[in-house]
């Protein structure tokens, strides 16, 4: 059994039932499995398929629920009801939408590069699903615990841009290409603060494995690393192109951008990928900063994870509903001139603290938090002062500004039309008729 799956109870249970010859299986009384000896490879494949089936369906079901929840929340935020017709509280609306999407006519633009056009939705959905392979949903519930888990997330999510480019280019649509240009600019800018924000967390945990990071969180890292959380959350919003960074889709400018020409289930896959990215981002934030599945004992770890996940999703939706979109140059400036500096401050402060307190215990983590919070508040305030726009001090006309002279002079009195205005108009026709003749 590969080492990546060793601690995985989900994997181990299924694999031991099927094959049951490993030393780890022996401890659980599975000395002989379902498959005869020599068929371990089949057991491996079948258990892999079962786990993939479980995770993919859980994620897709989650997407359905998320779409419904997001729309309900949108409704509440906008003082309206939201979907409430199909099923109790409109819960089946997403299902109906999914069915509708699948049965729509699949249109391919005549000018499109057919191969790439069909490939792009697959390219976007595959990485979005792959990320879920390493997310620990609860104690021992994950597909793989890679020792470079955090880097794996970064690498896989960066593939999204390739598919956006493919989609844009293959649709032969100029608006889509503009959207793809923005997407690349966003990726290049936000990948760096996102990765650097995680450096603080990795330093504290001493590992890039998500399991180790959860284990290291005596207290949630959001308390110890507020600056890293701030930067990571914003960068993650930008990476998945959510408001206020939804430049690639920018409904009011690009009108959906790169997925402009997609219809039917191809569009559906883009849509799915977008919401899967939302779930995976929330799951990663939960794992890295909110101590993952950790919680009080009577409640199972999966519920803790779920509750934290839903809370993060709520915050993401809240952001999306509240904030207007930033302009491209502002978004890039924010990444390079704001977030990048903040991550640097965070790395330096964390490094100094770790030099003083190596392998921190929980109480030492509290000390770190006490130092990190003032640093975070001061540096975020400083950056916001540097990047913020100064408000107008005088909305009313400035007495010193040259104002346009309105009604300052009067016309000579003999020039004023003598007769009463209502008749003045009536005199015109006679004159006009004379002129006409």
């Amino acid at each position: 059994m590969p080492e990546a799956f060793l601690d995985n109870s989900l994997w181990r249970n299924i694999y031991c039932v099927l094959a049951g010859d490993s030393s780890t299986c022996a401890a659980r009384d599975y000395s002989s499995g379902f498959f005869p000896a020599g068929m371990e490879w089949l057991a491996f494949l079948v258990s892999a398929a079962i786990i993939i089936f479980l995770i993919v369906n859980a994620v897709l079901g989650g997407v359905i629920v998320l779409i419904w929840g997001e729309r309900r929340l949108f409704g509440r935020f906008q003082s309206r009801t939201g979907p409430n017709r199909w099923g109790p509280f409109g819960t089946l609306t997403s299902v109906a939408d999914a069915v509708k999407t699948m049965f729509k006519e699949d249109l391919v633009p005549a000018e499109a590069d057919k191969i790439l056009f069909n490939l792009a939705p697959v390219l976007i959905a595959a990485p979005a699903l792959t990320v879920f392979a390493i997310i620990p949903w609860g104690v021992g519930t994950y597909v793989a615990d890679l020792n470079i888990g955090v880097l794996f997330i970064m690498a896989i999510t960066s593939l999204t841009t390739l598919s956006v480019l493919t989609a844009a280019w293959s649709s032969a649509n100029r608006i889509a290409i503009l959207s793809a240009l923005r997407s690349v600019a966003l990726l290049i800018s936000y990948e760096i603060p996102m990765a650097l924000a995680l450096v603080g967390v990795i330093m504290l945990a001493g590992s890039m494995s998500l399991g180790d990071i959860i284990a290291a969180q005596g207290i949630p890292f959001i308390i110890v690393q507020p600056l890293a959380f701030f930067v990571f959350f914003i960068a993650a919003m930008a990476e998945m192109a959510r408001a206020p960074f939804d430049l690639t889709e920018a409904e009011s400018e690009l009108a959906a951008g790169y997925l402009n020409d997609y219809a039917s289930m191809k569009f559906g896959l883009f849509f799915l990928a977008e919401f899967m990215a939302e779930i995976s981002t929330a799951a990663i934030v939960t794992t890295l900063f909110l101590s993952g599945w950790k919680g009080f004992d009577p409640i199972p770890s999966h519920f803790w994870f779920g509750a934290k996940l839903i809370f993060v999703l709520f915050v993401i939706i809240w952001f999306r509903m509240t904030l207007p979109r930033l302009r491209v140059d502002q978004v890039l400036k924010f990444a390079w001139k704001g977030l990048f500096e903040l991550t640097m401050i965070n790395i330096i402060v964390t490094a100094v603290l770790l030099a003083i307190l190596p392998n921190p215990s929980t109480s030492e983590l509290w000390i770190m938090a006490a130092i990190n919070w003032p640093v975070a508040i001061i540096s975020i305030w400083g950056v916001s002062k540097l990047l913020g726009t100064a408000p107008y001090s005088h909305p009313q006309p400035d007495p010193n500004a040259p104002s346009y002279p309105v009604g300052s002079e009067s016309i000579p009195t003999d020039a004023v039309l003598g007769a009463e205005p209502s008749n003045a108009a009536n005199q015109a026709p006679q004159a006009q008729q004379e002129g006409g003749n």
Partner: protein
Amino acid sequence: MAVKTQPVTVNLGPQHPSTHGVFRMRVMFDGEEIVDVEPVFGYLHRGSEKLAEERTYTQIVTLTDRMDYVSSMLNNQAYILAVEKLAGIEPSPRGVWLRMIAGELQRIASHLVATGFLLQDLGALGTPLIYSMRERENILDLFEMLCGARITNSYLRPGGVFMDAPGEFWPALDRGLDDIVRSIDDLETYLSGNEIVFSRTKGTAVLPQELLINASITGPMLRASGVDWDLRHRAPYDYYDRISFERKLHTASDNYARYWVRVQEARESVNIIRQCIDQIEPGPVRPSFDDVPRLIRPPSGDAYAAIEGSKGELGFYLVSDGGIAPYRMHVRSSSLINLTLLRDMLIGGQFGDLFVTFGSVDLNMGEVDR
């Protein structure tokens, strides 16, 4: 982006979520920068001016509703003033007060729509828009009480309005005004100081005063540059000379100033309506049919009357040959003329600002194309 790229020409519209109707812009981009813009009009051209030549003066009121369909009361008002000037009709005082109230309510509604859509163009996913629309709904409810219609009101008639306000209108109006003030307060709290709104709109699409006046641009756009030009104040029509109100000016003349002026004007309109409520007097809402017949036959001649519409000077030029229908009707459409400087505002700017600037002009395709 500093990298020189090959300029791309993109057709934005006529089917585009942010063109406020069916408008088309042929835009040339260099990366994100706008190199050239060519507006293309006419997708909503219905020939209202030609249609008016075959309708009686009262029937034309319904045509004016459909020009700027988010401020039909004001369109009615401008048209009715032109008819009254042409035919020499003396309006009934109560009718005048009622149409002033209706017009100012419509101005608030129109400014709310403009603000909501500006924020929608800024990328706020509908929330501010729906909040402004909610207040607009209240105003439309009030219109429903007044005339039974919500959008295409056709409330005004030569000499006044066609029916008096029902008894329950006045308390509803009082409540509505309080709601509007409260919602404008909310709007200002959450948006006027919002960093994203501010950084997106401050200093974009600045237009100098002289250029604005030279391009015949009027209304909130002109007042946002600090020119104190409001026809309600400078050329009072109806009973605006009996009303005292503040003209809100901003000096920056950028997108933020235009947004700010609209919000403040909506607030000022509430004051105007309150003064109208105080001064309104009982009486007939329109002259009797002996004074103003159903079929008006103005003497041959021409008349031009303009009001301060929600988007600028809204004028009607009517020519009569003595018949029951105007010989020629021309609409001085503020939406169309305010677009004159669109190229100056957009060229050199960013793509992201394109629709924000476009939204800050506040136009209505029904009025642009007529």
